[in-house]
């Protein structure tokens, strides 16, 4: 998958930078696709999610307590935004301390679904974000991507290609 990391202007702030991914040839981010897919049925929930993310960016930072951690492999930062028991939508993301989050996609987690592996759509979305996390971790290790001087922004080569 060829893609680029972009910063979401409306959600980022002085406490956390909020990123998502645009696939090559696409005009929308993964998070935009998540909104588009579910805004019809879950408008209130989507609005609540967006407002919480904006609050993290501008006021509280991306504190661990706001997420359901360890949704991916140990240490890869893959998590889901905390969802209340009576809500259905699950959003996958990668959390980099309190200062940055990268938003992926997600979907409804129906009652009775215990883990993302039990649901086709959630499996696809979780595996996508796990793979992105893996790519970013490798780039960070190689020094192609690095954190800015203030420690809150990803810098460097933020374009990813299958042919590397």
């Amino acid at each position, binding site marked *: 998958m060829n893609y680029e990391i*972009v910063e979401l202007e*409306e959600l980022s702030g002085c406490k956390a930078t909020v990123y998502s991914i645009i696939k090559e040839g696409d005009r929308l981010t993964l998070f935009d696709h998540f909104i588009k897919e579910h805004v019809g049925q879950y408008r209130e929930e989507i609005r609540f999610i967006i407002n919480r993310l904006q609050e993290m960016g501008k006021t509280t930072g991306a504190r661990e*307590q706001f997420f359901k951690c360890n949704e991916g492999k140990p240490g890869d930062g893959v998590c889901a935004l905390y969802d209340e028991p009576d809500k259905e939508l699950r959003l996958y993301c990668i959390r980099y301390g309190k200062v940055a989050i990268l938003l992926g996609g997600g979907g409804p987690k129906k009652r009775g679904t215990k883990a993302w592996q039990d649901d086709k759509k959630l499996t696809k979305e979780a595996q996508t974000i796990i793979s992105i996390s893996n790519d970013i971790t490798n780039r960070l290790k190689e020094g192609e991507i690095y954190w800015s001087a203030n420690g809150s922004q990803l810098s460097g080569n933020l374009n990813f290609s299958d042919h590397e």
Partner: protein
Amino acid sequence: MNKKQKAAKKYSSALISGLLNETTTAEKLQVSTKMQVAAHLQDLISAAGLSKGAFAEKVNKNPSEITKWLSGTHNFTVDTLCEIALALNVPVAELFAFEQTQVINKVQIVVSSKVTRPAVPFGSPLITCCDTQFYFATSKQPLLFPLTSFTS
């Protein structure tokens, strides 16, 4: 795609801004307060040297209930806030002792200027010729407070 760029490209989403603009000022304040109370509560628990489990025992709840309290989505009742304050040995008001911030998505600046005929001839140090006022307003509920109002 360009491989030598440094910071990430800024992306503005019409979908996100559309939904943010739909949110009422009250809804925004509710989300903001819930999240700030949760963040502050986590800080108070840590400052008291308690783990989540130890705090759960103190308030006689399951740790999963504490996770919900700290998630920034919980709508606390006054009774619960009293129990928390007692467990942490702080006044209830302390649970709200964080810096209140309000995120404003749209700001409209209205500048009006009125030229008035000078009461005294030009050249006088007492000249009064211009009134200018600035206002900020949100898209949903105008906060029509004058930022500054001056007469020169």
